[in-house]
């Protein structure tokens, strides 16, 4: 059985979305099975109308903010959503929406981009994460 990675995305800030996309790509590239659990800000970033938004960036990135935005806007750094789609195309990547956040924000699966497969609770995700060799919280 392939090694597994379990990743919780809690933040919707742009740098975290890039961190997610790049880490998922790396894991997918070496044949890992990847499970991503979207919650709070991380879930809102996956709403259809939000995946193309550029921002927000946190204060601790102030020094690198211009370089970051310039790389994004010039296309040198491919959009995080595109990188994630690419990772899904080459590997075994599964994305789940947190049931609590879905209720909280009154969202339906159809409000989210199609890469989000299903709605899952913490218990369901933890039972996946329990088997994973790598777990990350972003």
């Amino acid at each position: 059985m392939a090694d597994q990675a379990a990743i919780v995305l809690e933040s919707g800030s742009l740098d975290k979305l890039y961190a997610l996309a790049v880490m998922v790509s790396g894991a997918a590239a070496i044949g890992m099975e990847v499970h991503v659990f979207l919650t709070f800000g991380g879930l809102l970033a996956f709403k259809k109308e939000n995946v193309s938004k550029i921002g927000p960036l946190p204060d601790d990135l102030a020094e690198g903010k211009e370089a970051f935005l310039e790389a994004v806007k010039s296309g040198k750094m491919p959009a995080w959503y595109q990188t994630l789609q690419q990772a899904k195309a080459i590997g075994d990547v599964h994305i789940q929406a947190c049931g609590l956040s879905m209720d909280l924000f009154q969202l339906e699966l159809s409000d989210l981009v199609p890469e989000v497969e299903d709605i899952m609770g913490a218990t369901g995700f933890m039972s996946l994460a329990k088997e994973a060799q790598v777990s990350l919280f972003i």
Partner: protein
Amino acid sequence: MQDSLKVDRTVDARGSFCPGPLMELIKSIQEVPVGTVLDVLSSDKGSAKDIPAWAQKVGHEFLGGREENGTYHILVKKSK
């Protein structure tokens, strides 16, 4: 690395940030037969380290790498 090594396919990923070059390589390697030698052109330092690690992990042969005027050439042979 042998200079005489025949490159069958060039993957030009210059200007692309990490993990772009590796992603380009993975796309290309799926399209070519076993035994094909691919030369990945990259301007990204991370990829120069990542691609050999990836090749070893998934079972392709890393044939060597060099840097020329800010461009990394990373040679990989599709082995399976």
